[in-house]
């Protein structure tokens, strides 16, 4: 017997949700710190944390994170 149409739709939607959740999980696990600069002409440049500019950017960003502090729990 063929499944009811709404079952097919529900399966498809939950399939997409599973894919999205897996993508977000992989992103959390695999993503490393980075520093990226964007220029007005659309060009962008990545700076590794072992380069001098990259290291300075991470230090400056760290200070800003410190100023912002932790987000108050809702």
């Amino acid at each position, binding site marked *: 017997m063929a499944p009811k149409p709404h079952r097919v739709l529900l399966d498809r939607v939950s399939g997409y949700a599973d894919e999205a959740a897996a993508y977000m999980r992989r992103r959390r696990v695999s993503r490393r710190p980075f*520093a990226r600069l964007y220029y007005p002409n659309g060009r962008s440049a990545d700076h590794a944390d072992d380069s001098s500019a990259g290291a300075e950017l991470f230090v400056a*960003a760290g200070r800003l994170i410190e*100023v912002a502090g932790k987000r108050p729990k809702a």
Partner: protein
Amino acid sequence: MADVPATEVALGDAAEAALGFLTEMSPDLRGAAILDSTGAVLAAAEDPERWREDAAALFEIADRAGAEPVEQVHVATEQGEVFALRHAGLAAIAVTERFALASLMFFDMRSTLRDLATAGRRADKSTVTRQIGPSTPGEG
């Protein structure tokens, strides 16, 4: 406050409102600041002086890293993420939780600065109109 121009006060108020709106729109936001073209803080989550110094340092390092001034900066660390954007003669800095969506964050920051710049121009125009007065007698 007596010697502060009316446009600066108006822009500061608008920046405070814009910052509040940005905070409301972005659930991942921990703190943010809006600066004018001179680097002065128009609005900040707290401690404007620290925001001014650290934002200036970030833009200075970012500008030095390339041949031309940067438009956007995105630094993702283990502790959080920093977004900085220059637009329409203003700058915005935001610190978020990890894994905030960069495109959305930059979009919100850009639209906030665009609205603020428009409000600033409007305030400028009304101040000039007040100073000069109506161009013909009986007008206004």
